[in-house]
């Protein structure tokens, strides 16, 4: 793996000089550098990786989460989960969530970014407004929507005589997804706009001289130019869609009657409502599997950037 990587200094300007004095001094310098990188790696390994490996282990036990008394139960947890209709609902809801997020925020983000490209003066103003929901806490966003918009008594829905969408089985998932998307799309606008602005100006001018209109320039110049960003954000969306938790938990708790349950809330209920940490670990493992697929894809797509 290592040997296949082309040596590259990765910095502009002069190539990095080869250290002349080897031996003691060089070894000491390497040690210092490992010392500098150690705190970041150690924190990540102790807090994320080791408990992650434990989850892998506990998924095959009947661990209750209290103390470390448990028996290995083989694939019993997975058999129970796959036989549970709520798990099927959760997985389906995660996939619906993924489709919604791959379509609506992407279209809105691309449209607004493309329009902002030409509005040089107002660009910052709009970006700041679009990002406002994004920088606020999910707790705040969810409670604001629940209290003043979805509320049948005194909220906007009540004003129009509508039932709250969070308490109907057919709309609960979409009610939670709507708030999450409202908070998220502005972020995509900013990322897409940042990528579009990297497009070489001469390409845009050449296309305009060839008689391409606004749509033509967008379709044939900007869209291909931001393809890596679109792909990357798409992969990120896949990962986060399988991990959706905050807005569902805050707005519907997965209800009514599990209609808006996603794998995140399903796992959380196992751990902290029924103290079946073994099953929670198993669901966590299944969620991570989807994330891992996307993560491998992501690492693969960005491998050139990483080793540059």
């Amino acid at each position, binding site marked *: 793996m290592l040997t296949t990587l082309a040596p590259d200094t990765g910095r502009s300007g002069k190539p990095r000089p080869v250290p002349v004095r080897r031996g003691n001094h060089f070894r000491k310098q390497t040690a210092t550098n490992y010392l500098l990188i150690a705190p970041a790696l150690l*924190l990540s390994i102790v807090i994320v990786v080791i408990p*992650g490996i434990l*989850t892998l282990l506990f998924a095959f036990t009947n661990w209750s989460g209290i103390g470390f008394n448990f028996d290995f139960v083989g694939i019993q947890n997975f058999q129970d989960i796959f036989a549970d209709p709520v798990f099927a609902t959760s997985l389906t809801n995660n996939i619906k969530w993924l489709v919604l997020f791959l379509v609506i925020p992407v279209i809105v983000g691309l449209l607004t970014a493309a329009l902002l490209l030409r509005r040089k003066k107002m660009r910052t103003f709009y970006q700041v*407004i679009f*990002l406002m929901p994004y920088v606020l806490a999910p707790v705040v966003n969810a409670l604001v929507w629940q209290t003043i918009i979805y509320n049948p008594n005194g909220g906007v829905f009540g*004003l129009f005589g509508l039932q709250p969408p969070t308490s109907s089985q057919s709309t609960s998932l979409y009610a939670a997804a709507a708030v999450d998307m409202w908070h998220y799309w502005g972020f995509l606008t900013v990322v897409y706009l940042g990528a579009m602005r990297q497009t070489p100006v001469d390409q845009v001018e050449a296309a305009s001289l060839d008689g391409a209109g606004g749509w033509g320039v967008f379709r044939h110049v900007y869209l291909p130019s931001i393809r890596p960003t679109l792909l990357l954000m798409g992969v990120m969306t896949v990962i*986060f869609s399988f991990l959706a938790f*905050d807005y569902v938990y*805050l707005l519907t708790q997965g209800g009514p009657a599990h209609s808006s349950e996603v794998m995140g809330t399903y796992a959380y209920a196992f751990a902290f409502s029924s103290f079946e940490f073994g099953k929670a670990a198993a669901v966590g493992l299944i969620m991570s599997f989807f994330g891992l697929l996307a993560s491998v894809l992501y690492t693969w797509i960005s491998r050139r950037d990483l080793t540059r």
Partner: protein
Amino acid sequence: MRTYFRATISHLVLAGFAVIALIPLVLVLINSFKNNSEIYGNPFTLPTSLSFDNFVTAWTYGKFAQGFINSILLTGTTVVVVLVCAGLAGYVLAVQKVKSWPIIMIYLTMAMTVPIQLFIFPLYSVIAGAGLTDNVFVVGVILAAINMPFATFLMRTFFLNVPVEIEEAAVMDGLNTIQLVTRVLFPMVRPGLITVGVIVGLNAWNEFLISSTFLQDSSTKTLTLGFLTMNGTFSTDIGTMMAGALILIVPILAVFIALQRYVVDGMASGAVKG
């Protein structure tokens, strides 16, 4: 004429989306000053008088004074730990002075996408077993570890833009690696440190899953968790809920608007988790 027409349309579309982003926030603002009978009439009407009663109730019952202190301690812990560790790691990865740097980069990419649900259950058990739940500093360090990979990547790109010559000159002057990084390079990547600090700070301030799991005691609850506990008691008292929301929204938007350049740059330069 045609370009004028187009510009108008594009302004209208952008303004439309701005309205979508802002309407819920405007509703919070106007209803936080209204009493409940006014709100039940119509949430869109402006308040008839400026009453601050709702704010006093929200501040008291949401335990916002304690919440602010806890949120500041938690966020401060996360930001300091991330800036120190990710700053140093970002430097090492930028200058590639350790042979295993490609492996470390791949490790960090994988770590960035590890879901919280993969490690939260055993982590909670260990932390609870050690009696370290209900401690904002512990949660601050956990959130630092989660933000570390992304912060390291972002710091690395900032270090990549420092000219090699500056580093060489410093080494000529006889500075060792640690002096070079802390005295010469950290001041040069200050915009990077601010960008990472603001984004990581917002993440920590707003975080829900880890904080709500590890901070159960009312004396250790962060600002957002304190606001959440109001939901049960005040769910029919819309004015108080909106006042509470406004108290949480205003400081964050003020910080965001003051530092928007760094936030927007940071987001535009790399994918940020959220």
